[in-house]
C-alpha cells in the first residue's frame, strides 16, 4: 500500500516550472529518498505533499486521499530551512509542539527525547543558547515527538557532525522499524545509497530516476571500473576505452566507453604499472547523479 501518491503534479512560479508532470508512489514502511541538484524541485514537491503549496495540476494523495488539515498529526515535517523560537526554553518549546500535535503527555515525551538526544541538561535553557548541532537535534525532536506515521525530512543531515548524524540516522531507522514511513531529500548520495529502499531523482522539475538502488544501477549496467595502482591517475594517460576518470586520490573510478572490453583496459594498465585492486562494478549513485545533473561536462577529470 502506498501512503503517498503523486499523480502528474505540475507547479509553476511565474514562468518557472518548478515541478513538471511528476508522478511517484511512496510505499508504506519504506525509506524513500529524494535526490537531485539544488533547485531541481525537491523542496517544492515536499511542500506540496505537506499542503503548504497547492499544485497547479495533478493529484496528491496522502493516506489514500484524506484532507491535509487532518493529516498534520500523523505527519512529521522537518523543513530544509528551519527556525525555532529563540526566547523559549528548550523543554517548553518541545512541549509546545507536542501539544500542537496532540501528544497525550507532551512534557513526559519532551523529557524522553531530551534524554535520548543527550540534551536533558539543556531542558531549562533558552533555545538561543544552543549550538547549531543541538538546535538541529531539537528541530528533529519536534518533528517526531508524536511518532508520526509519515516523516518527511528535507535535508535532515545537512550541517550535522558525524556523531549527531549517526544519532539521527539511528532514530530514523528505529522509527521505520516501528512502522513509520520515511521520506527525505538529500545531497549526500552515500546516505541515500545506504539508507533508502527507494530513490527518486528529480532534475529540472522532472523525475529522471525512480526505483530501488539496484534497479537504478541496472539501468546503467556494469560500465564502471574501480582501480588502485602504483603511480595513481597519471598511469591512465593514453589508455583507450575510458570515457571518464573520477580520481579519489588513492582510488580511481573509470567509466568505460560502451562496448569496451574491461580486460583490455586492465591489460593496458598492467603493461604500465602494478595494479593492487581492480573491480568491475555498477556506477555509484553519486556517479549516476553527476551523469544526469552535469551531462555537458562528461569527459575529463572530476
Amino acid at each position, binding site marked *: 500500500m502506498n501512503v503517498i501518491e503523486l499523480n502528474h503534479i505540475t507547479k509553476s512560479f511565474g514562468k518557472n516550472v518548478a515541478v513538471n508532470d511528476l508522478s511517484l508512489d511512496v510505499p508504506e514502511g519504506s525509506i524513500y529518498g529524494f535526490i537531485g541538484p539544488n533547485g531541481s524541485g525537491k523542496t517544492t514537491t515536499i511542500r506540496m505533499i505537506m499542503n*503548504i503549496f497547492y499544485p497547479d495540476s495533478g493529484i496528491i494523495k496522502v493516506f489514500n486521499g484524506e484532507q491535509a*488539515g487532518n493529516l*498534520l498529526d500523523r505527519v*512529521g515535517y*522537518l523543513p530544509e530551512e528551519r*527556525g525555532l*523560537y529563540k526566547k523559549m526554553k528548550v523543554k517548553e518549546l518541545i512541549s*509546545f509542539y507536542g501539544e*500542537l500535535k*496532540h501528544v497525550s503527555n507532551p512534557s513526559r515525551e519532551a523529557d524522553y527525547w531530551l534524554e535520548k538526544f543527550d540534551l536533558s541538561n539543556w531542558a531549562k535553557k533558552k533555545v538561543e543558547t544552543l549550538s547549531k548541532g543541538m538546535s538541529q537535534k531539537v528541530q528533529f525532536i519536534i518533528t517526531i515527538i508524536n511518532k508520526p506515521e509519515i516523516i518527511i525530512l528535507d535535508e535532515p543531515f545537512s550541517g550535522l557532525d558525524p556523531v549527531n548524524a549517526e544519532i539521527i540516522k539511528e532514530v530514523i531507522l528505529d522509527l521505520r522499524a516501528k512502522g513509520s514511513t520515511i521520506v527525505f531529500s538529500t545531497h549526500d548520495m552515500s546516505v541515500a545509497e545506504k539508507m533508502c529502499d527507494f530513490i527518486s531523482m528529480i532534475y529540472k522539475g522532472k523525475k529522471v530516476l525512480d526505483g530501488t538502488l539496484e534497479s537504478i544501477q541496472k539501468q546503467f549496467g556494469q560500465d564502471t571500473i574501480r582501480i588502485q595502482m602504483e603511480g595513481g591517475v597519471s598511469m591512465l594517460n593514453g589508455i583507450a576505452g575510458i570515457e571518464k576518470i573520477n580520481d579519489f586520490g588513492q582510488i580511481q573510478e573509470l567509466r568505460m566507453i560502451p562496448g569496451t572490453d574491461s580486460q583490455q583496459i586492465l591489460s593496458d594498465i598492467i603493461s604500465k604499472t602494478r595494479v593492487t585492486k581492480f573491480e568491475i562494478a555498477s556506477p555509484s549513485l553519486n556517479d549516476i547523479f553527476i551523469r544526469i545533473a552535469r551531462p555537458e561536462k562528461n569527459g575529463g577529470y572530476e
Partner: protein
Amino acid sequence: MIFLSELPDLKKMEVMNKSFVIAKREYRAAVRTKAFLISLLLLPVFMGGGLIVLTLFKDKIDLSDKKVVVLDYSGLMGEHIIKTAENWNKNNIYDDKKEQISPLYFIEIVHPDTVNPLQQKLDLSNRIRNKEIHAFLQIGVDVVHPHFGEEQSRIFYFAENSAVDNVREWLSNVINNKIREMRVVEFGVDPKKINDLFYWVGTESMGLLKVDSKTGKVIDAKEVNETQAILIPYFLIFLMFMMLMMSAVPLLSSVMEEKSERVAEVLLGSVTPWQFMMGKIIGGLGVSLTTSTIYVLGAVITLRKMGMSDVIPYDVLPWFFAYMLLNIIMVGSIMAALGASCNDSKDAQAIQFPAMLPIILPLFFMMPVIMDPLGKLATGLSLFPLWTPMIMLLRQSTSVTIPIWQPIVGLIGVVLFTFFCVWAGARIFRSAIIFQGKRPKIGTLIRYIIKG
C-alpha cells in the same frame, strides 16, 4: 454514545484547539516580558500625562512681585490702576490658610515722552531686560472713545513673554471695567447700579431628563461637565487605539520575524496557515483584553472612589469591548497578512506606516465628532466599517443620544468586514508566508485574495 452529526463540530474544535495552543504561547510570550509590565505601567502615564502635569502645575503660578510701568497718554487710568492694585494687594494675595496664591502688583506711573517716545520705550524695555520691572503699559489718549485702528485708541502691553502673561489679562480687565464705568456714567446711569449692570449670568450645561425604568419616576437632568463630554470619550478611544498598537499592529513584525527566521515553515508542519494566523490574532486579543480590563476596572474603581460614578458610561462599556475585539481581529488579520508578505525588517518598516494610517486617521476626527456627534460627518465616518469601532464608540460615549439603528448597523458592518478581513488575510497569509524574495506588490496581494 457519539452521534455522527457531532463529528464535524468535534473536528472544528480540534482545529480551533491548535489555534488556542498558539494563542496561549503568544499570550505567555507577550505578558511574561518586562516590556509588557513596563508598558502596562507607562500607558496610563502616557495617556494621562498631559492631564496630570496640568493638574499638578495648575496652581504653581509665578508669585514674585510684579512691577509695571504705565505710560498713560489718556491721563484717566493711572490713578485707577494704582488704587485697584493696592486693593488687590490687600485682599487677593493670601488664601484662608495664609498661603500666598497671587503675586503683588506695583504700579509706577511715568509721564509719556511725547518728543522722543521710542527712546522712552527702549529705556523701559531695557529696564525689563535688567529685571528692574516686569512690564510696561501704553494707554492711548482716545482709549475711552476709540477710533477703530488708530494707535491712540489702543492699549499696548510690553513684556518679555507678553502673549502668555496673567498680568496683561489683569490689567486689561482693570482698564476695561474703568472705561465701561466712565461710559455708563456719561450716559447718566447711577454709579451704584453699575455692578448690577455688568453682572454676567452663565448658562449651565445640562443633560436630558429620563424615566427610571424600574420605578417609572422622572429623573432630573444632571449637569454635564467637561470630563463627561470630552475626557471619557477621549479615554475610551485612546485606550482602543493603544490596544490596537499593542496587539494588532505588532503582528506585522512578529509574523515577518517568524517568516524570516524560518519558524513559520516549522509551524506549518503542525498547523494549517489559517490556524497559525488565528492563533496569533487570538493571542494578541488575549493580551489586549487583559490590559484593557485592568485599565477600565482601574478607571471605574478610581472614579467611584472619587465620588464621580455618575460619569462612568456603563452602557457604553460592553460596546467598547465588542468593538475592540472586532477591531483587533480586523486589523490583526490585515497586519498578519502584510507581515507574511514581508521578508525582512526593511520590508516591514516600509509597509508599517501606510498600514497604520487607516488606524490613526480616526484620531484626527475626534474633536469634530465630539463637537457634533449627530452631524453628517460623524454619522458618515462612524458607518465606515474600518472606522466604526472608534468613531461610533466616540459618538456613543458622548452625552448625546445616538439613534439606536446606527450602532446596530455599524456593528453588523464591522462583523461582516471583519469576516472579509480574516478571509482575505488568511488567503494572503497562506500564499505569502513561505515565499522569499521580492515583496509582493498590491496587484499580487489582490491575486492571492482572488486565487487563494
